[in-house]
């Protein structure tokens, strides 16, 4: 096995230093393109490649997929990234049960290409199909149907976990249940998932019966959530810039798989690629505010019904490859919380006020309710209540202090932040959000770690690079 040597130079420059001329980017970046760390990237093409590829290496390592998590959960400064995307074979499919067995580096896009023409769909899908099966388990991702389906791990009957000592474990609810629970949402730290089973769900059409409804404020959002609880997929876009009578206005989007049989052809390849790094001034209060007004009124009526293809419904941003360049070369950070129902409403209103006041919000903001199906992972993010996610461009001296305040507010309201989207939470915040973290740490593979894990378990309590 040969090593693909990446840019060795660490690029952990704080945003303030990012005005220097562009240097060669590291070979592997997370979706937020912040932080930027040099690392060696070693492809895993076969199930037998791990742990053999680590032989003789003293470096720590981290299995990674397509790098679609936003912060440093898929990064390892000066370490070895084991990229699983070449390990993308199918192993078995049973059309009676819908259970697909596949190697962990297969992407959800590749699963859809196989499943949709056969009348099956993902049981849970995030807002992009360019994530791997292993990554979806390791971050126990969620989708628009959390209230009826729970998170991704709930649909993974079993998988194989290989440790750096070469030991192999079949993990399910009944076999090695503690390893199963540690690995779902385990951020790739418990070992390499070589293959996994996924329970697909039947569909008869690519179509989604869609409804879009404008709302004004969190009360109207909660009313709509109640009214549409029989619909499988619900999600809302929310305007995080406007204040006054337009505060927390948004569009509630609901959809079900169409029951009218339709052609089940595979999706075409996306053709658009965002061509360059946008300049730093692209996203400002004026441009975002203008976008939000247009987006809010784009549907013409306060309430529309239509049948949409699943691609624009689930993956609107996948149509433009590399859209993260919109945020310029400094990158973006995401802020995503889940606050339990007890404080969900007051917490959401307070946090949205703080964000509107900052004037820093982008237009990519998502509001949704999490249901009460428990996640199976010890470190899973979803919990019943309100989930909110927002992208911020990185502005030196402004973005990170704001994230600090928002993180503390989330903590005060009993919520938690999502490691897969994070580049800023402190060790103290993390350890309060995830009280099981010390039990989880016992399942970590001694050879594996991530920049995220090093940051949030730092016993000195050191703050992240701001």
């Amino acid at each position, binding site marked *: 096995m*040969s*090593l*693909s040597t990446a840019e060795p130079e660490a690029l952990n420059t704080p945003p303030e230093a990012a005005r220097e001329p562009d240097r060669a980017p590291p*070979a592997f970046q997370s979706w937020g393109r912040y932080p930027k760390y040099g690392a060696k990237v070693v*492809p895993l*093409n*076969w*199930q*037998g490649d791990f742990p053999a590829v680590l032989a003789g290496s003293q470096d720590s390592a981290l299995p990674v997929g397509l790098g679609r998590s936003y912060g440093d959960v898929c990064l390892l400064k000066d370490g070895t990234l084991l990229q699983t995307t*070449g390990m993308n*074979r*199918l*192993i*078995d*499919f049973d059309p009676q049960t819908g259970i697909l067995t596949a*190697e962990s580096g297969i992407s959800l896009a590749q699963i859809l290409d*196989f499943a949709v023409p056969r009348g099956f769909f993902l049981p849970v899908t995030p807002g992009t199909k360019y994530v791997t099966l292993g990554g979806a388990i390791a971050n126990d991702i969620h989708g628009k149907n959390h209230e009826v389906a729970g998170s991704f791990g709930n649909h993974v009957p079993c998988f194989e976990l290989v440790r750096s000592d070469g030991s192999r474990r079949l993990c399910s609810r009944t076999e090695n249940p503690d390893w199963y629970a540690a690995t779902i949402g385990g951020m790739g730290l418990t070992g390499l998932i070589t293959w996994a089973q996924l329970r697909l769900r039947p569909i008869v059409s690519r179509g989604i019966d869609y409804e879009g409804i404008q709302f004004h404020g969190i009360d109207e959002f909660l009313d709509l959530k109640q009214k549409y609880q029989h619909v499988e997929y619900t999600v809302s876009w929310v305007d995080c810039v406007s204040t006054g009578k337009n505060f927390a206005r948004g569009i509630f989007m609901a959809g079900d798989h169409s029951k009218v049989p339709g052609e089940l052809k595979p999706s075409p390849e996306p053709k658009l690629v965002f061509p360059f790094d946008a300049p730093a001034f692209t996203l400002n209060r004026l441009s975002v505010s203008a976008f939000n007004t247009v987006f809010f009124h784009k549907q013409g009526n306060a309430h529309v019904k239509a049948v949409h293809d699943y691609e624009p419904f689930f993956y609107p941003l996948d149509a433009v490859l590399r859209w993260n360049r919109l945020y310029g070369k400094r990158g973006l950070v995401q802020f995503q919380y889940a606050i339990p129902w007890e404080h969900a409403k007051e917490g959401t209103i307070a946090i949205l006020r703080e964000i509107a006041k900052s004037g820093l919000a982008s237009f990519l903001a998502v509001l949704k309710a999490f249901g009460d199906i428990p996640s199976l992972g010890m470190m899973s993010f979803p919990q019943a209540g309100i989930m909110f996610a927002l992208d911020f461009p990185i502005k030196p001296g402004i973005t990170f202090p704001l994230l600090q305040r928002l993180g503390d507010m989330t903590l005060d309201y009993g919520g938690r932040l999502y490691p897969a989207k994070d580049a800023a939470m402190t060790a103290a915040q993390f350890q309060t959000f995830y009280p099981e973290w010390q039990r989880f740490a016992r399942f970590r593979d001694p050879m594996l770690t991530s920049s995220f894990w090093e940051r949030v378990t730092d016993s000195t309590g050191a703050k992240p690079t701001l």
Partner: protein
Amino acid sequence: MSTPAILPSGTSPGSDSTAKITKKILVLGATSGIAEATCRIWAAQGAQMFLIARNPEKLAAVAADLKTRGAAYVGTAVADLDDTDKHAELLSHAINSLTGMDVAYLAYGILGDEPRAEQDFEHAAQILHSNFVAPVSLLTWLANFCVQRHAGLLAVISSVAGDRGRKSNYLYGSSKAGLTAYLAGLRNRIDREGVTVLTIKPGPVKTAMTASMKGSEKFADVNKVAATIVKAIDAKKDNLYVPFQWQPIMFIIRNIPDRIFKKLNL
């Protein structure tokens, strides 16, 4: 060199109840990146395939994938194709298992270590054996099998590197140059017998074989290369540069005079 073992597996091709007539394809070097990507396309078309490769775990993983994707039949044999003594037995076993053969797809070869091959003749000879001598042995048997039936297509992966020797990879390049010349002659001999010989010359492709090479992230996408190869086989082409831009590039490289070429760093 290890002793080749023949391990037939898979269900009988006759057990498929569908009346659809599908291609019968013999794949040599089936775990190579380009071969695997090509086989996935054929599997989705419901082809019948027999796969030969050296590593049993990798071969089993590829075979399971192709069966799951819809191949009507997947047979396998583990063998070291460097061992030319075993070729006749191996090929007749494979074709018996397939109950015939429409296409033989030869994707067997090694990149080798060029700097080592410049100093170490044994390694140079290994490259020539795997990329030229062993393929000639396989193709001798396969060509004669096809000529007897006046049917069949031999699709063979050579390389743009065979178009002109360059200092960066002239051992690999000369082995592929030999293969390309052999295929041109073979085509000239057997095309009139109803047998198509397709010479495939890929430029650099992103696969496990090239992962360690400089600039490999810019190499051609293996799935697009595979789709082009499937089309060229269906069209019974004689030669294929893939991606296509390598045809004009190699035209220029072939025609640079040596007094200039010898000073270039290519």
